[in-house]
């Protein structure tokens, strides 16, 4: 292809992501977004202006070398694109699928001002998938340092930290409480958004390249304590996420048919309950399901429920039913990734905006028979900068539902902190850490990801894993000692987020 002028580049339309038909995909758990082919990927790559001072990278929590990998892709040099990508991101096939690019790299792309940024996420996925299928660019391990590191949790933060330390030649062991590695990538994000074989393949490949051992079935706090890990290892990273579901504080929360999104998604994703009885874990889905909340987890739960309803209708006949998303703010404040919100609407999820649940109603058998809600209006901006929703007096009404899934957030699981001392936490349950180094108040323990910030995104957790790994590496190389844990010998930081 001849070299294009910037004007010509800007005339190329942003390439659409091919996707499974919205009406068809309600009947299966197959991936929705199908991925670019080579021609489409190159056409999209041609849109990149290769800015002298690129701003796209500013929006990436792990600092992916975006212009470089796109340039290689554009030139048809896939090997070069893969090397440029893996320089900063060891899990591109995952990030390309789950990052909220519209508020990160694509938001800071110069073309965003003209309305259509380069589809960086889709290109990242293309490069990630290419590498995953061929495995031509193994992660390289530096000469062994003899230092041993324990990483607690195998989600995005822990995996990234492990990979970064492994690359630098340290011996890393990951402790995972569940039977499979991946954390939220495995138990939380559904198959149709992030196929599990991709998670397994990315993790296995990285672990194999770097000689990292993953010990599943190890619940730190119970099976082994943090203090025991400190006795056995030179440094410890806590990447245990925010796994404890917040339940609604309304009457009826213990009725049959009320569950946390974590439970619903764990049954579906980790335990493959959508294949019951071929798989042993059962799942029920109501005829009319209300999902409370409008974040990514709520969208995932709603779309899983919708699929289970359609698969049931296909098998047993009858109407599939309805899935509602009940959200106390308006459409503009929806915190989910734009693509997930769009896909949920396309598939037929019904949105009840400016609506808040006040009571879950039960029948004589203590099963859900409805959700009492109140309509809301937006008042003054609150601490988050979003306008605070306030109830409209007298606007109560009952939504006819037989199942309620609660997706209003999660906090760190406290089990990991059992039988350990000196690790300060906030009243929200997050670990207190210095935000530039991610050192905690306990020497030789670093923490990052949701366990420090509260529930956030996959890629921000990966970013934290990288930041911690860099500081841990300095410690392991002897650049500072345990006695210099707080450099200025002043007080420990007090804020977690």
């Amino acid at each position, binding site marked *: 292809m001849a070299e294009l002028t910037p004007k010509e580049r800007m005339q190329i339309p942003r390439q659409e992501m091919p996707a499974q038909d919205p009406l068809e995909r309600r009947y299966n758990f197959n991936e929705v977004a199908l991925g670019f082919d080579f021609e489409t990927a190159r056409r999209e790559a041609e849109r990149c202006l290769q800015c002298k001072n690129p701003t796209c990278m500013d929006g990436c929590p792990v600092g992916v070398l975006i212009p470089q990998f796109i340039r290689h892709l554009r030139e048809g040099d896939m090997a070069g694109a893969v090397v440029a990508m893996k320089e900063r991101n060891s899990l591109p096939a995952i990030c390309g699928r789950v990052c909220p690019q519209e508020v990160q790299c694509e938001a800071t792309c110069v073309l965003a001002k003209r309305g259509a940024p380069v589809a960086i996420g889709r290109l990242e996925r293309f490069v990630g998938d290419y590498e995953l299928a061929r495995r031509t660019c193994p992660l390289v391990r530096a000469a062994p340092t003899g230092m041993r590191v324990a990483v607690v949790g195998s989600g995005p933060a822990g995996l990234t930290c492990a990979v970064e330390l492994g690359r630098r030649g340290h011996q890393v062991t990951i402790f995972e409480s569940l*039977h499979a590695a991946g954390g939220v990538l495995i138990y939380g994000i559904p198959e149709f958004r992030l196929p599990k074989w991709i998670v397994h393949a990315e993790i296995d490949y990285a672990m194999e390249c770097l000689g990292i051992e993953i010990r599943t079935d*190890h619940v730190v706090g119970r099976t082994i304590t943090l203090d025991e890990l400190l006795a056995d290892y030179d440094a410890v990273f806590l990447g245990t996420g925010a796994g404890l579901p917040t339940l609604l504080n309304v009457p009826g929360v*213990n009725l049959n048919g009320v569950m946390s999104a*974590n*439970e619903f998604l764990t*049954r579906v994703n980790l335990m493959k309950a959508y294949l*019951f009885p071929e798989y042993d874990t059962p799942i029920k889905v109501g005829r009319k399901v209300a999902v409370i909340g409008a974040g990514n987890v709520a969208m995932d739960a709603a779309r899983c429920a919708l699929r289970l309803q359609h698969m049931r209708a296909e098998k047993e006949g009858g109407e599939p039913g309805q899935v509602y998303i009940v959200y106390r703010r308006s459409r503009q404040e929806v915190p989910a990734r734009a693509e997930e919100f769009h896909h949920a609407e396309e598939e037929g999820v019904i949105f009840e905006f400016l609506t808040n649940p006040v009571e879950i109603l039960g029948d004589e058998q203590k099963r859900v028979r409805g959700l009492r809600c109140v309509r809301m209006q937006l008042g003054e901006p609150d601490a988050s900068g979003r306008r605070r929703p306030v109830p409209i007096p007298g606007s109560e009404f009952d939504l006819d539902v037989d199942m309620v899934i609660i997706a209003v957030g999660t906090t760190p699981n406290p*089990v990991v902190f059992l039988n350990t001392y000196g690790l300060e936490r906030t009243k929200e349950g997050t670990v207190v850490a210095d935000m530039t180094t991610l050192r905690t108040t306990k020497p030789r323990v670093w923490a990052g990801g949701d366990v420090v910030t509260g529930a956030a995104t996959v890629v921000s957790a990966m970013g934290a894993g990288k930041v911690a790994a860099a500081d841990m590496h300095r410690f392991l190389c002897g650049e500072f000692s345990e006695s210099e844990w707080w450099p200025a010998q002043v007080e420990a930081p007090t804020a977690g987020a």
Partner: protein
Amino acid sequence: MYTILKKRKLSDVTNEMVLDAPHVARRARSGQFVIVRIDERSERIPLTIADYDRSAGTITILFQEVGKSTMQLGTLQEGDHLLTCAGPLGNPTRVDHYGTVVCVGGGVGVAPIFPIARDLKEAGNTIISIIGARTRQLLIWEDRMRTVSDELIVCTDDGSYGRKALVTEPLKEVLEQRHVDRVWAVGPAIMMKFVALTTKPHNVPTVVSLNPIMVDGTGMCGCCRVLIGGQVRFVCVEGPQFDAHEVDWENLLMRMQYYKDEERLAVEHWKEHRCRLEQAEQEAEKERHRHG
């Protein structure tokens, strides 16, 4: 992979297994449980740790075949492996010198009450144990219980062995006749509920070990939540032992019924599968004879 080192059938439906699981055994204490999985398609099955041997790195589990998963578990033999064994989970028993403690075990609940009684005995308590089962065949670990009890009362619902009574009858008599400082009870939820009702008028602090439906068993899903004194509590991380008088038994019993239809379906599916498997094996056998 966790190897089954020993397997013993205690009745047609009751199985005792010793598992090679050093990571669990090293910190296991009475009152705690493990989550096991058989193969890739298994659910996560919570089972109480009935005994442990730290130096051998083994734990003992005991289960009755009541649903698909436990039926499948029951088909495994010595030398077979489990895919998952996570633990020890839950809080251990709060062992102290209380004085006189009554330990009540019903059905397979006798297995988890055993290490609790042993710990309490070692702490200097006088142990009166009451164990029961529906019928003689289902009664387990009488001998073991005898070794840790100052007094042992055995009963069966049908009178086929020991006294013909529910465990709550001798419990009531003991409470009426002497001073009791604590009661511990493990068994079916309905039995524990009636133990709570029996001890309540005597104001004897009573601890039960709850067994609700769980998924991950690590505090992640909240499926096992119960109401304790009106508060939502997660059995997997905050329990499994709670003050029996604070438990909302109706809520627990109701929540345990939620997947009843699916459980029945899973058993049917499993039996059909076993049937086909056996048929295929018989066919293969015949085939071998024909050619041999």
